[in-house]
């Protein structure tokens, strides 16, 4: 099965603190891409970060980084120094046909 699982429907974090969102996936392919997307209430899906499966180095984009564990098929997103604007639904996705998880709603507490 080509599934993506996000086991945390909701998460909250204090402003300026760090939060980690979990994602696991299933695939029979050896080379693939993984993505985290953010969907604010305005609903447009925005790319946060992506990871190429053949690269062992974890991707980083400013305050956003991933912990990619290929053998465990795990792809978590870490948000450092959380800001109010980070509040949104976060979706993990596996590339090519883009299988999405069910999302994690992140609340940032001032």
């Amino acid at each position, binding site marked *: 099965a080509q599934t*993506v699982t*996000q086991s945390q429907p909701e998460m909250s974090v204090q402003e300026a603190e760090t939060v980690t969102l979990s994602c696991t996936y299933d695939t029979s392919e050896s080379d*693939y*891409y993984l*993505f985290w*997307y953010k969907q604010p209430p*305005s*609903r*447009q*899906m*925005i*790319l946060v970060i*992506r990871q190429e499966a053949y690269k062992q180095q974890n991707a980083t984009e400013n305050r956003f980084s991933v912990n990619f564990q290929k053998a465990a098929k795990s792809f978590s997103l870490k948000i450092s120094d959380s800001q109010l604007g980070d509040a949104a639904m976060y*979706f993990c996705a596996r*590339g*090519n*046909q*883009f*299988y*999405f*998880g*069910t*999302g994690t709603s992140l609340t940032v507490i001032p």
Partner: protein
Amino acid sequence: DAGVTQSPTHLIKTRGQQVTLRCSPKSGHDTVSWYQQALGQGPQFIFQYYEEEERQRGNFPDRFSGHQFPNYSSELNVNALLLGDSALYLCASSLESASNQPQHFGDGTRLSIL
């Protein structure tokens, strides 16, 4: 640089009707994908168009069909609408020449079936 644009923004239909949704890809992109996002769920892949042909298809019935035009814009058609078709329909574009590149999404069309 124009991003992905979708029309209309909102649409209300009744059961059994047919609907057409439209999408213009981001400038420079040649591949268009369509997704259905039910309330509180992640997007579900419907199909993808490249070179005016359906290249991949998700687990959706034949009531869902599409088209891509020579200018890369695309339409999603849904026939015999059911109440369960109520959802946000997202269009995303990307570059075929760079598979697995990030998809750029539009704001979506909110379809309500009465």
